[in-house]
Every structure is written in structure tokens, then in C-alpha cells.
């Protein structure tokens, strides 16, 4: 008992140390989504001029899909674009997009320059639909299951690690279920 009393401060210190160590690994900019495992919000966004299809809640049912929130003015969006394209073109994951607070001509320009891997794009000019998605900065990506529920959210540009370690395994699992 007496010995325990002497070891106790050390144990408390170690506990606090471990908590801090884990805390340092966490990016404070990443806020856990309140919408995980919830159905996608009800929304309907118009297409870009010249495009046939926009994006609405109905489009997100029936298949495992990725929803990518992007804008032409967003530099990290450009950085992640090759990864998004690879997911759509080589991994066979349908990717749809929300074009966040953008000018139509800038968005079209951007897609012409960087490639358009998206199955369809909804224009969210005032950012309201994105607020319903809990978006607080572009880029953000959401993985949607067959029932149209949000299963995973990635904040910031997609990285090869996130794709290999989280998104692709989850896609595999969701496709089975």
C-alpha cells in the first residue's frame, strides 16, 4: 500500500504523458464530423453551365461513392486532384463533386486544365448546401455507402496514405455490405 503511494505520482505522470503524446499527433484543425453514419442531407444543386447533371441527395443512393468538395480558388484542391482522378479512373470509385462558392467560368476553366473525373458536379454558389454537409473548409471528401449514408469524412487534401490505408479498405468493406 505504502509503495503504491510512492508509485502513484509516476503512474499519473505517465498517463498524462501518453495523453499529451496522443494529443500532439492529433491535428486540431480536424473536427470530427457530426454526420458520420447519418444519411446525406437533403439537397439539390444545379449543374455547371454546359453540364447535364447537377448533384442531389437522390444521386447518392445505390452505390458506394465519394463526394469531393472543391473550388477553383482552392490550392490544396489542385494538389489532391490527381489522387481524386486516380480514385475515379483507376480504382473505379464513382466520385461526385460539390463546387463550393466558385464562379462558373473559373470552375469550368479549372476542370479543363486539370481534368474532370467527376460523375457529376453540383454548384453550391452560396455555400448553403455545404453548411448542411458540415463543411468548414475546402477540400473535404465524404465516403457514402449504398444506403446513402455518410461513412467517412476526410478534411483537407486527400493523401496517398489516406487513400491506401482508410478509403480503399472502407470502400471494399462497404461494397460487400
Amino acid at each position, binding site marked *: 500500500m505504502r509503495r503504491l503511494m510512492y508509485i502513484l505520482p509516476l503512474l499519473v505522470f505517465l498517463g498524462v504523458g501518453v495523453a499529451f503524446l496522443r494529443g500532439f499527433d492529433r491535428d486540431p484543425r480536424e*473536427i470530427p464530423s457530426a454526420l458520420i453514419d447519418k444519411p446525406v442531407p437533403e439537397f439539390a444543386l444545379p449543374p455547371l453551365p454546359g453540364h447535364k447533371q447537377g448533384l442531389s441527395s437522390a444521386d447518392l443512393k445505390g452505390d458506394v461513392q465519394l463526394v469531393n468538395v472543391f473550388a477553383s480558388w482552392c490550392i490544396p484542391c489542385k494538389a489532391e486532384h490527381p489522387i481524386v482522378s486516380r480514385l475515379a479512373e483507376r480504382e473505379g470509385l464513382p466520385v461526385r463533386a460539390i463546387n463550393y462558392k466558385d464562379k462558373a467560368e473559373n470552375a469550368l476553366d479549372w476542370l479543363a486544365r486539370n481534368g474532370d473525373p467527376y460523375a457529376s458536379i453540383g454548384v453550391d454558389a452560396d455555400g448553403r448546401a455545404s*453548411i448542411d454537409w*458540415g463543411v*468548414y473548409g475546402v477540400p473535404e471528401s465524404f465516403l457514402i455507402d449504398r444506403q446513402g449514408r455518410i461513412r467517412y469524412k476526410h478534411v483537407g487534401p486527400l493523401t496517398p496514405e489516406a487513400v491506401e490505408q482508410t478509403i480503399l479498405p472502407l470502400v471494399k468493406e462497404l461494397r460487400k455490405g
Partner: protein
Amino acid sequence: MRAILLALLLSVSTLPAFAVQPDEVLPDPKMEERAREISKDLRCLVCQNQSIDDSNADLARDLRVIVRERLKKGESNEQVLQYVTDRYGDYVLLRPPFKATTLLLWIGPFAVLLIGALGSAVYLRNRRAAGGVAGDTAPLTDDERRRLEALLRKDGT
């Protein structure tokens, strides 16, 4: 003279820069006050340590406008806060709610205080049981007393 007056005037007219833009303000002052109150409790997700009432970020402005729109629709303060938490989680609330997941946050400091008080109480009681402060130390031996006196005498002269 005029320059001095102008300087004085400018020096007293430095109000804090408000993030709320004139075009956001509601015509009904009562409702606007409620909107300000709600906004002060909502975290700006872009700058995180500011409320949306203080923040100049675009998203903060959008949320301020949404708060006012919902108030105009006749929603209560709680309904408006719920609308935002439904989308962004408890994290947007600068005053976290009291519930199971935040129990440690609210109770933690008091629990630590209580543990400390109990520890002190036990320690003090044990010490008293062992004979108080004087009981902790053995009295000096004759030899020790003689050395102490010698030291004190040397020091005093």
C-alpha cells in the same frame, strides 16, 4: 489647435472592430441582440478560438446570416443552436453541454480537487496520530546540542 482637437477626437473614437457587418444586422433590435448572444456561443470553425461573432472568416459570416434567418422564422435560441450543432457537432459550442461524453470535462477539476483534499486530510491525520510535528523528530542528543551551541556561538561573534 484644430489638429490637436482632431487627434483627441480620433483617440477616443477607437472602438473595437466588429466582425458583424451593417448589412447583416436585423431591423428588430431585440432579435438582433438574441442573434449576437447566439453568435457568441458558436465557435468559428475556421479560426477555432474565436466565436462567429468575432470572426471575419467567410464561413462565420454565413453562419451569422443563417442564425438571423432562423430567428426571423420564429425559432428559439435553442432551436438555432441545435440547427448548427446538427451539422457541426458539439464542437461548435463554446460552452460544451453537460452530458456523458463531456462528464470528465465538467467533473474532472472538482474530482482532482477532492482527491487532493482527501490525500491531504489522510496525510495530516496520520501525522497527528504519529504524535504531531514534535513527534516526527527525535530530540537532540547531548553531543549534538553541544555542537549546535558551539556553532551558534561562533556565528554570533
